[in-house]
């Protein structure tokens, strides 16, 4: 995640406290794991404002069934469905599960 984006996430998390949830739209397992790690445990590259800052925010992906079930079907169809068909949803969600597993053990 870019340095400016990290700063924005940190500012919003500081402003709104523990009620903040991160919803991802990442295209592959690697980017999913990296972004999830950044907003849960801190910047893995130790370069940005989130270095050493474990925000511990809950992370969901827009492709997860539990998210899709909450979004009106017409909205999901218009905003997400095409990308969901063209990307490897199973690999993305496996990456998210791995990120959650790592977060739970650290």
């Amino acid at each position, binding site marked *: 995640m870019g340095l400016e984006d990290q700063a924005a996430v940190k500012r919003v998390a500081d402003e709104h406290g523990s009620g903040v949830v991160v919803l991802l739209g990442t295209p592959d397992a690697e980017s999913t794991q990296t972004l999830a790690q950044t907003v849960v445990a801190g910047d893995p590259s130790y370069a940005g404002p989130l270095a050493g800052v474990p925000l511990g925010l809950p992370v*969901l992906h*827009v492709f997860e069934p539990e998210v899709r079930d909450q979004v009106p079907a017409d909205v999901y169809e218009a905003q997400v469905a095409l990308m969901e068909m063209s990307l490897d949803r199973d690999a993305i969600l496996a990456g998210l599960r791995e990120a959650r597993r790592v977060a739970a053990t650290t």
Partner: protein
Amino acid sequence: MELRGKKVIALGERDGVPGPAVAECARGAGAEVVLTLTACYV
């Protein structure tokens, strides 16, 4: 996790689902979007 009533950071990506599209889904689910970003890796 129920999104209704939550504050959401919509963190999209250019090669995936862009931030504004993620944000629309969050709003549709009843959440308040407090930040929308679209990451870009080149």
